[in-house]
């Protein structure tokens, strides 16, 4: 079955990417997005209880990007992300129990409670780390791709960053080096319209961010990030190109942040928002759009959706119960893990 990307306010005219996929794959994309949505909603609901004592940057409305990106990758491929990392963590296959335990600051968390929401990590499924310094992690991903190339590995690296990261010099330095060395890395810019409260056009005269790659020798394109099938199609093509040795790629996925920049609430009435954007974002909710198309083209029924909802809710309940039952780290462990033991070099 072939999928045409939706057109919409965030889509680009003439976008041709199509993913070849089975019904199973179509369902998998939807279920991954559903999982992220329900997890984020659960986090927003429980936040006032103060069980999570750290900043949270939610991905509601942006699920299509993480899911379409990660499902185009193989298990040994690696991703690097940002403080807005819950979606990426879940999409790449990170364990839900370890996620909630991390948010609750428990020793069973994915970073033993040390990193919190902003520093998720799951190396067992290829999520190498999430950093809260804008753009800082981009060259790190390029370095991983360098290692892959030097070692003749098939491993491909994806770095996901926001539209704000394209402001930083280190973005350009990284793209240049990746182009120079033709490294197996895909730069994924998740353009959710804002860096905190500032629009792309407030920070760039040339606001088509994907074009910045071209001048450095990296092909770039812009796609609708709210169409998970289109995201997957675009990524599959980019992945194939990189694996064929065509060098790095840059993709800008257009989406929209529904919640406030940081925290559990919405801030739709704040002056930096355009009310029409909220309206459009609601209409192009990636989850609803995917559901509509799955109903249209496959035999997706209410029963099946209800079943998936139940599954997700059960997983979330179990993860929360696991996190709550887990111990906090022992304060005596404060100094652990600063350095790895170096090999002894005799005397």
């Amino acid at each position: 079955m072939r999928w045409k990307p939706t057109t919409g306010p965030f889509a680009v005219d003439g976008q041709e990417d199509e993913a070849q996929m089975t019904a199973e794959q179509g369902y998998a994309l939807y279920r991954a997005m559903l999982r992220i949505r329900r997890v984020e909603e659960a986090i927003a609901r429980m936040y006032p209880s103060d069980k999570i004592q750290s900043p949270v940057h939610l991905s509601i409305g942006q699920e299509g990007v993480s899911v379409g990106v990660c499902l185009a990758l193989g298990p040994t491929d690696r991703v690097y992300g940002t403080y807005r990392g819950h979606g990426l963590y879940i999409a790449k296959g990170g364990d839900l129990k370890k996620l909630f335990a991390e948010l609750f600051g428990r020793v069973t968390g994915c970073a033993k409670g040390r990193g919190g929401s902003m520093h998720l990590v799951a190396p067992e499924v290829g999520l190498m780390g999430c950093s809260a310094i804008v753009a800082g992690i981009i060259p790190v991903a390029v370095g991983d791709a360098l290692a892959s190339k030097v070692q003749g590995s098939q491993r491909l690296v994806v770095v996901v960053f926001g539209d704000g990261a394209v402001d930083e010099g280190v973005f350009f330095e990284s793209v240049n080096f990746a182009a120079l060395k033709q490294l197996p890395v895909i730069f994924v810019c998740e353009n959710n319209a804002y860096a905190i409260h500032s629009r792309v056009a407030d920070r760039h005269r040339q606001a088509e961010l994907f074009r910045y790659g071209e001048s450095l020798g990296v092909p770039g394109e812009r796609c609708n990030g709210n169409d998970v099938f289109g995201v997957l199609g675009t990524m599959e093509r980019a992945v194939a190109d990189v694996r064929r040795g065509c060098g790095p790629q840059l993709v800008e996925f257009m989406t929209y942040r529904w919640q406030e920049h940081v925290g559990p609430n919405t801030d739709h009435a704040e002056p930096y928002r355009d009310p029409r954007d909220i309206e459009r974002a609601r209409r192009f909710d990636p989850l609803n759009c995917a559901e509509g198309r799955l109903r249209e083209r496959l035999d997706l029924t209410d029963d099946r959706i209800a079943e998936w909802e139940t599954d997700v809710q059960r997983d979330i309940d179990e993860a929360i119960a696991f996190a709550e039952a887990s111990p906090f780290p022992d304060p005596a462990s404060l100094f652990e893990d600063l350095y790895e033991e170096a090999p002894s070099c005799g005397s």
Partner: protein
Amino acid sequence: MRLVTYRDALHAALSQAMEEDPTVCVMGIGVDDHKAVFGSTKDLVKRFGPHRVFDTPIAEGGMTGVAIGAALGGLKPVHIHIRCDFLYLALDQLLNLAAKWRSMFGGQMSVPLVVRAVVGRSWGQGAQHSQSLQSFMMHVPGIKVAMPTTAYDAQGLLLSAIADPNPVFLLEHRLLYELTGEVPDYCRAIPFGKTVVRREGDDVTLVANSYMAVEALRAADVLSGYGIQAEVVDPVSLVPMDEATILNSVRKTGRLVVVDTSWVTCGVSAEIAALVAEKAFDSLKAPVKRLGMQRTVCPVSKPLERAFYPHAGTIVAEVLDLLGEQRLDVQVPETATSFKGPF
């Protein structure tokens, strides 16, 4: 005098400076948005216009250089960062250019730049949003450095920083923003190079800066219940530093505990301990003690975070230890802070 929050004191100083000097401009990420850097730049863009109050791209290195150039060009930029951790990206500009410009070019020009930045602590700020960069700036000659503790300091030092022809780094603290203090009705600049005695006492000197001065005062209250009088001395201005006030206090008490908002290694506490070792060694009745962040990466998890930071309880314990007192029953309530995230 009037009672205002630290945030409002900063705001009043900025407004007054902008009104009185048309070359003062405010730049930085989010300075013109509805959150207004925790309220400290509220409505300035409405009052002074977008050419004097403007958001920047997220490009700390480049923007710091732009601010330096703007200062050379005749403006007085106040460049604001909501977390000082982001300033690692700007260290090249600050330390290789701003700090050096005057001396490197034979004293012909100055760089009247003010950099304001905020230390994050509590609510799981974690590894990259909790650091305190004063010693980086102190280490390299050419920048003045201050950490305002009270609303009075914040207002007065921001005004004198703006009036200063040299680069000035003002390091604020997130946990101080809600605290209130008295300030003059008309904001007055207070000079750099003044250490403030926050509380007098004869038994031990607590040199503590920024939010640690607040914790040290709480510790002093607890200690006085045990008949121990601690003198709390706040080196608000770190460069230049008023050494005499610190030395006089140590000469009086003979005991010193330094409490800093950052790590102790090569930090403010190391500097002050060295100062006392060099200039008041004879008056010491006990070894100097230092408290700061524990020597590891700041963790998010609450019990670890609590063990990571110094607070009134650890200060009390350190003082009792120093005085050879066994007071294992001392209970110090955790700081009641109204700060509850999310940022």
